[in-house]
């Protein structure tokens, strides 16, 4: 496993949540640090 410390700007994108709400990622990280966990698949 490799955790890489990098310091680059995250791309701000509009995202759709499973409950049907839309947000820009910046609306999330502006509040609190955001731990974004990308899953493989729903298996």
């Amino acid at each position, binding site marked *: 496993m490799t955790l*890489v410390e990098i310091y680059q700007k995250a791309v701000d994108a509009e995202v759709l949540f499973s409950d049907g709400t839309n947000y820009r990622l910046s609306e999330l990280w502006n509040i609190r640090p955001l731990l*974004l966990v990308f899953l493989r*698949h729903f*298996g």
Partner: protein
Amino acid sequence: MHRAKTQFEDSNFQVVLVGLGTPDRTEAFKKQFSLTFPIICDPEKKLYQTFGLGRVSVASMASPTLLLKGLKALSRGHTPGMPRDDIMQMPGVFLIDTSGNIRYAHYSKDPSDNPSIATLLALKDIL
């Protein structure tokens, strides 16, 4: 990760998952496993691509190392469900601070390569 939800909340992170399913399938998945983390739906993998998460190679999926990890998981009672979506899509984890800077990134080397909960919780110390 779900079992550590309180610890993540205490760490002042907001944990958001990103999945490949549609909103309906994602909600069904959340309900099936009683997940309470919010989940972003990215069936077209746009966000995966934006964050540089690629697909695992066929050779990597058949590697002895990965097969051995799978057998160990099975021996501990972890059985895989019916895979849906792109099973070759690689996972990853990113910590983004309140200024929009990516402070840590984990690009999985293979499908089983995920940071431990302890490793993720320790990231609060770098903020």
